């Protein structure tokens, strides 16, 4: 028997879902305002063909390289006696805290020859491979070693047991990771601009800048949304309804680890090279430009300490405000999903997750148009920017807030009520202590995402306000590499620090276990 959700809770959850649907619906509505002939003329251009090829090529190539790199790294860390594997595990996850537009700045300032397809592939692979590494490593850790042993006893060697048993088990994690990489590449904007690699996102931004509220941008945006949805549908189809849950119950043994023998130093060298490319070069180049006078770069420019201070403050301020608002907005929806999982609640959930499949630039653009047309006083206000952040990062927050409420089972709440606590006391003494770490993790994740966010900030930030991200973008797009360095150093520092905090909050679950 399931009771009905309180009306207020339901309404609050519906509000979050509507907030996300609004800009997406608006984009399609704008595009639909074109006549069919006009729209076809805009779409059937050689330029659009070139963009389509560029976008699809880079998305497919990055996804495949990330899949191979991430799986190989995860296998070596989790399944072999790799020297220093704890350290490599951290170094493989850390690039997540390094935004792609900062590493592209570092690489481009190292060599301008990287401004082509290969450069884009290099930078994006470095930025996105942890999205495959993390889920695959977790899946490898969770796999029952008896499966591999059974395969060995049934006549499979190392390689065939990997292909016939391990790989099929990794499928959901691998496909999920690849989906995130593909969507990330499709929405990437800052890195492509700096790398002079033209894709849908860079063109949408260019059309927006030249034509301002023109329809061309929203037509291209619609095309991009369709590509993203096609990727989602493809993943859903490939993953299919196959079953992967562990069949057995009960205690798990420590995993098998293979000896690498003489190979181990080659593998270590590979990991060192990976760490050098993902973290070493960006951090090194930022460090290098920090020591250079402003005149040393292609475009000379100097840094004013006052601007640096203000940019830092506004980045932190936006980050904190958005973290609070986003977490607040998903709490009713998460609670509804956990306690009253009706079909309607699932519909709300799906709408929120839609925001993950739609590029941030597209959502930001829609919010700009919405503001210009209907909410003029809000346009380029700090409030609207924070709301935009909330719309963009609600999927991120929803995942961990929902997991947090799962911890606070109704049984526990009922026990507390039976022991004489009223509802507010139960909330304070039972639910919040249980769900607190999850809420904190959600806020921290939103904070990191906001501080390193570029698209929406660029389009929606108030005219007189600069954040660290917009300042880096302004300086690097004019090749003022030395001027960008202090901002990049601060942004990377904040991001790494907050990620470290998040790690501490979530515990060691993200790293290889103590037993081994």
């Amino acid at each position, binding site marked *: 028997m399931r009771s009905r959700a309180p009306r207020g809770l339901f309404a609050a959850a519906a509000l979050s879902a509507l907030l996300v649907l609004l800009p997406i619906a608006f984009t399609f509505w704008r595009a639909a305002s074109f006549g069919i002939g006009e729209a076809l003329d805009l779409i059937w251009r050689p330029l659009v063909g070139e963009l389509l090829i560029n976008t699809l090529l880079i998305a497919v190539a990055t996804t495949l390289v990330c899949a191979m790199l991430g799986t190989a790294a995860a296998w070596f860390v989790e399944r072999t006696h790799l020297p220093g594997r704890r350290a490599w595990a951290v170094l493989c996850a850390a690039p997540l805290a390094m935004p792609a537009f900062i590493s592209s700045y570092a690489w481009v300032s190292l060599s301008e020859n990287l401004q082509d397809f290969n450069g884009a592939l290099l930078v994006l692979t470095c930025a996105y491979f942890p999205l495959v590494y993390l889920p695959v490593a977790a899946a490898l850790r969770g796999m*029952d070693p008896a499966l591999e042993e059974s*395969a060995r*006893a*049934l*006549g*499979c060697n190392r390689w065939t047991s990997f292909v016939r048993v391990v790989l*099929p088990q990794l499928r959901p994690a691998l496909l999920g990771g690849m989906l995130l990489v593909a969507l990330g590449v499709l929405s990437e904007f800052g890195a492509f601009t700096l790398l002079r690699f033209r894709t849908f996102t860079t063109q949408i931004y260019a059309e927006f800048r030249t034509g301002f509220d023109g329809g061309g941008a929203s037509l291209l945006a619609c095309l991009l949304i369709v590509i993203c949805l096609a990727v989602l549908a493809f993943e859903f189809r490939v993953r299919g309804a196959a079953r992967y849950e562990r*069949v057995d*119950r009960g205690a798990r043994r420590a995993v*098998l680890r293979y000896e690498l023998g003489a190979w181990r130093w080659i593998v270590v060298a590979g990991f060192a090279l990976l760490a050098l490319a993902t973290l070493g070069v960006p951090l090194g180049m930022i460090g290098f430009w920090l020591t250079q006078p402003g005149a040393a770069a292609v475009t000379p420019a100097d840094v004013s300490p006052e601007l640096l201070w203000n940019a830092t403050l506004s980045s932190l301020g936006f980050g904190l405000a958005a973290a609070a608002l986003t977490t607040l907005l998903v709490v009713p929806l998460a609670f509804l999903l956990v306690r009253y999982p009706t079909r309607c609640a699932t519909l709300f959930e799906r709408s929120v997750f839609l925001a993950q499949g739609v590029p941030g630039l597209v959502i930001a653009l829609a919010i700009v148009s919405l503001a210009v047309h209907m909410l003029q006083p809000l346009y380029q206000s700090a409030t609207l920017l924070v709301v935009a952040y909330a719309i963009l990062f609600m999927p991120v927050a929803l995942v961990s807030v929902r997991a947090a409420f799962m911890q606070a089972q109704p049984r526990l709440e009922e026990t507390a009520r039976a022991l004489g606590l009223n509802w507010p006391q139960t909330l304070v003494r039972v639910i919040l202590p249980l769900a607190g770490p999850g809420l904190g993790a959600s806020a921290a994740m939103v904070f990191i995402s906001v501080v390193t966010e570029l698209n929406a900030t660029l389009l929606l930030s108030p005219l007189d306000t600069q954040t660290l991200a917009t300042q880096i973008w302004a300086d690097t797009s004019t090749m003022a590499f030395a001027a960008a360095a202090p901002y990049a150093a601060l942004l990377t520092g904040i991001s790494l620090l907050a990620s470290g905090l998040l790690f501490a909050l979530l515990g060691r679950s993200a790293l290889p276990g103590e037993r081994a």
Partner: protein
Amino acid sequence: MSELRIRGLRKSFDGHPVLHGIDLSVERGTLLALLGPSGSGKTTLLRLLCGFERADAGSVEIDGRRVAGDGLHVPSEQRRIGYVPQEGALFPHLSVADNIVFGLPRTQRRARHRVAELLELVGLPAHFGERAPQQLSGGQQQRVALARALAPAPTLVMLDEPFSSLDAALRVETRQAVASALAAAGATAVLVTHDQSEALSLGHEVAVLWNGRLIQTATPEALYRRPVTRELASFVGEAVLLPGVARQDRASCELGELALAAPLVPSGHGTIDVMLRPEQIRLLRAGEAARDGTAHDALVTEVIFQGQDASVALQLQSATRTMVRARVPGYLCPQPGERVRLTVEGEVTAYPRD
């Protein structure tokens, strides 16, 4: 002829010796139960035989072919063994039939070679082949795991505590199905278990591993009647231990003169502990005379009634007031406080005292 021959097998982990020189052989077509308390090293021994771990010293021969020893380590996949892990470990991404044919060559996999036959062998209906492993109960999963291990016709089947995760009722049923499937396949098998009733009921022979050493290898009956140590006696069943004196093939204790199953080694006499099983103590009915004439008076102090039988604590009325436990049929269960007469039947075992 021996299917499995182990000589001087040793293994330590991080400097802690786990197995100290194991010697063991298993005859073709028989089932050896490897019994030991948890932490005795029995799973390590099994993993060495399967090739999942490398032995430090000693040798292993399977079907006359050396697979480990003197630096040689044949990988698991070339040992021609069948392995049934603790919880079945069926591949969750494959159907039951695909699980069963997993170890066969590609053409036979395509043809679903012998699936129906193997399902029948382990006592499952043929249509189970299309099911997903998640749709099976724990006991059914174990049976499929056995079918999967038997499919490539291995020379030796290893079972690692295959019934420990099943509940009591399912355990007995699955145990019988597995035993008859192994017998029907004519397989040579090694079953690792910490459950003495499982070892005694399934094993043609039982080898006991204690702190990394094989302390006794015997038929189930010999192991139960004449365990080599007091601790083992209590491990393989309930034991009544009484101080006494041995003289050749007789032992005298609070329960009188009793026949020894084997004379005391080395001297044949000395102070000993007498070990007998609770079911060897029989309560006499009113007016019934003991077969060899010695009956003892006792007071019933506690009764644990278990249905088919009952465990009765008895206080002997002789001078020392010794307590013994007897196992009596349930329908003859006495009441606490009742005075009874008892007699001992069968032979007893002696352990020298130091």
